[in-house]
């Protein structure tokens, strides 16, 4: 037994190091197409998903507005750059700022509701944002805005996949570390306490809505960065990138990865983009299969792939204990490690 355990611990660590190495050297190992199209998409989709994972995991807010906020950043960036000839960096900054501001407003409204009510209000916002951008001519209506050019070191992403990849990787790492850091600050701790015990926190004098709103705005900023990067990569933005299908897609990505571990966002994005890129052609009904996979994950492993991996890891690490446990089980579904979501 003990030997298996050691082998597992060494093996799993080796796999982790290898994975990090591969992530760091994607442009070396893989083709230009893979780096520029697939890996970059994984990173910005992962960023958008991470904003949802942060909200769900630390704030207990499962939001469907993240794709829309992602779109707000992309649209503001594209609009300022293409129509107002503003500098790409400044327009990107304003784009992220716009998403944050929108996040403050939406968060301010939705923060009064919890659980499924929150889900519904954010979905309503997502659809309204989609309809808004597809109708308003200032933002290009149905065609969207084309001809976005990334700032100098990146220029044309198709020609410089390596630079774009490392830019996206840098943003992802910063976002990851930032969210991890915030989780340990007084604000982050209060946010988690608000997630678990809103009434108690309220009686302790904490402004529950304000905490949730600020958490939402932070997530909006992260989603916004993802939106800007996506707009740079595709050099355009259109309503199709933020419609309900995309909104659901982001939820699928985050749930596949696991709503309670930040790494899950990028893992989910990796799995989804790989499937999307390489298996969409195999079956005429790709969406059906994704839907089935999504339902299965929600039914079988509500904490997604990262939750599954963590459980496997725990089984191997611990000495085998065969103590009969009473019925009842640990926690509810969707609430691993005592985190309540509803």
């Amino acid at each position, binding site marked *: 037994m003990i030997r298996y355990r050691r082998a597992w611990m060494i093996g799993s660590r080796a796999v982790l190091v290898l994975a990090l190495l591969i992530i760091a050297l994607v442009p070396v190992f893989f083709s230009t197409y893979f780096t520029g199209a697939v890996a970059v998409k994984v990173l910005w989709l992962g960023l958008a998903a991470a904003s949802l994972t942060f909200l769900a995991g630390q704030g207990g807010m499962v939001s469907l507005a993240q794709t829309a906020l992602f779109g707000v950043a992309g649209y503001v960036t594209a609009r300022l750059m293409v129509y107002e000839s503003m500098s790409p960096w400044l327009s990107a900054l304003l784009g992220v700022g716009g998403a944050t501001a929108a996040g403050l407003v939406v968060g301010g409204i939705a923060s009064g509701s919890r659980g499924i009510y929150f889900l519904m209000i954010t979905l309503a916002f997502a659809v309204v944002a989609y309809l808004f951008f597809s109708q308003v001519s200032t933002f290009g209506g149905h065609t969207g805005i084309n001809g976005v050019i990334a700032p100098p070191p990146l220029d044309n992403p198709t020609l410089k996949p390596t630079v774009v990849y490392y830019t996206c990787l840098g943003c992802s790492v910063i976002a990851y570390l930032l969210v991890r850091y915030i989780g340990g600050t007084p604000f982050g701790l209060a946010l988690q306490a608000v997630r678990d015990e809103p009434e108690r926190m309220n009686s302790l004098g904490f402004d529950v809505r304000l905490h949730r709103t600020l958490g939402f705005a932070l997530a909006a900023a992260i989603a916004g960065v993802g939106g800007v990067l996506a707009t740079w990569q595709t050099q355009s933005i259109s309503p199709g990138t933020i419609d309900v299908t995309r909104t659901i897609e982001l939820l699928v990505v985050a749930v596949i990865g696991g709503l309670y571990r930040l790494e899950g966002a990028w893992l989910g994005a990796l799995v989804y983009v790989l499937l999307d890129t390489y298996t969409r052609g195999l079956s005429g009904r790709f969406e059906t299969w994704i839907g089935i996979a999504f339902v299965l994950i929600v039914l079988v492993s509500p904490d997604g792939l990262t939750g599954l991996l963590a459980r496997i890891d725990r089984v191997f690490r611990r000495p085998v204990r065969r103590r009969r446990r*009473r*019925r*009842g*089980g*640990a926690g509810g579904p969707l609430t691993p490690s005592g985190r309540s979501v509803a």
Partner: protein
Amino acid sequence: MTVETAMLEVSDLDAFYGEAQVLDGVSFELRGGSVAIVGRNGMGKTTLCRAIMGIAPPEAEGSVRLNGRELGGRPSHVICSAGIGYVPQGRELFPSLTTDEHLRMIGSRLMSRGRWSVDAVYDLFPQLAARRRLSAAKLSGGEQQMLAIGRALLTNPGLLLMDEPSEGLAPAIAEELLETCTRLVAEGIGLLVVEQNLGVAARLADRLLVMISGRIEDEMQAAALLGDEDAQRRYLGVEALAGTEGP
């Protein structure tokens, strides 16, 4: 079936809230008439009622037999149809329903199988008849308890399961309700009552079961416990000495 079966036979009943075990191998019998289960707060009395009725939570395991028929693990509505009428702690009336609707919502199959009908309940509790159209939330405590008993009777049960029937009622009103319950028992209905108040329990049943930490610890005659202050202190705590009404 030559051996006489008990009306209610509970054996080895365990119940859990998540990981916490609340009932630990509860076993007892009721052969007609009435039995009261007494014990302090938090000893598992209400959990026992819910477990018998098949209401989750708790998660219950074990055997509950009514007239020989196994009901353990069956859904609540089957248990009710089998003949247990439940009068829960705190009445648990439906705020969206009027008094009359509380009675009329009972299934016609249950209502027509015995002597209790809506009119019979109104005869038993004339006060309720005057409050027909009122939302149940607007009734007084005593009227609410009457309604809770009335709707349970409408399912024409062989056994009435009452959880803290006197809780929160003025002494005079509690007295009136106890009177009605004793009359029902005299007319042949079985009664299992769970009470914190020894005085009330002794009024309703001669046989008392003492519950401590999820187990039936002792069985006594009501008169014996009433006369034994030491046992009262041990089983029920100082606050529940005989003669005191209400908590």
